[in-house]
């Protein structure tokens, strides 16, 4: 094993470790944010205060080109339970509760993200 190989292995391992560290930090980051915002094509269309949700409920919304997404809202948590996109990744990610990873439905241009609470109402508020 020559010097070049060793350097390459070292760079790869260091990059991998840094990425794993960041993943861990992002996943375990605590959060006091509770305002779930639903974006369509980059615009916030709904914002829901998850602390004020008492009864779990479902909400369906449609896009301009026949995109259909259904979200399920529980106290403190939100999930995409149905989407007519081909990959269904947004459904597989399940419930989110902090402000790091959003639920992203790339084919339908829909994103759900939990943000710090504000009383600004973009669409429906409960």
């Amino acid at each position, binding site marked *: 094993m020559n010097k*070049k*190989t060793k350097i*390459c292995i070292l*760079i*790869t391992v260091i*990059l*991998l470790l840094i*990425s*794993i560290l*960041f*993943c861990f930090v*992002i996943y375990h980051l605590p959060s006091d944010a509770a305002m779930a915002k639903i*974006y369509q094509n*980059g615009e916030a269309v709904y914002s829901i205060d998850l602390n004020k949700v008492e009864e779990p409920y479902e909400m369906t919304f449609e896009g301009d080109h026949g995109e259909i997404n259904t979200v399920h809202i529980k106290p403190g948590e939100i999930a995409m339970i149905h989407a007519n996109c*081909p*990959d269904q*990744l*947004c459904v*597989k*990610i*399940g419930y989110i509760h902090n402000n*790091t*990873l*959003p639920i*992203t439905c*790339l*084919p339908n*241009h829909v*994103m759900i*993200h939990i943000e710090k609470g504000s009383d600004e109402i973009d669409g429906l508020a409960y």
Partner: protein
Amino acid sequence: MKNIKQITLLSMFTAIALTIFVVESAIPVPVPIPGVKLGLANIITLILLLHWDFKSALVVLLMRTILGSIFTGQVTVFFYSLSGGLLCLIVMYLINRVLKQKLVWFTSVMGAIAHNIGQILVALILLRSTYVLYYLPFLLVSGIITGFFTGLCAGFLSNRLPYFKKLS
């Protein structure tokens, strides 16, 4: 590219890459992070870079991306594939020159990282939100691991292509 032999080889490699791409898109990914995949079609890009030139790898990559997004029916994913693929190709070309065709797995790992960064850049533009950056570390972990294995595959395969070596 007037040589019929070259055109035939390029279309053959496009067909191989496309088949790998379509079959791979049918494999369900166990991780709920958009953009995570095996990237097996990158083996063909690597082989072309190692045995041929940048231009032929670019042609096959573009054809595979365009036809692949049509065949898999995911046209919206086209931009993610294209930007990731192009950035990956450029980085792999540069690293391949620096390493003088050796350590293919490292070239592939760096290419996978470039691919992930390209995807995130397009997501930043399309979704107009910086929150997609939180996906980057997850994509990088999967990219480094899958890139390592596809690089090894390409390395082993390129040693067993004597006929192709002579032709180019």
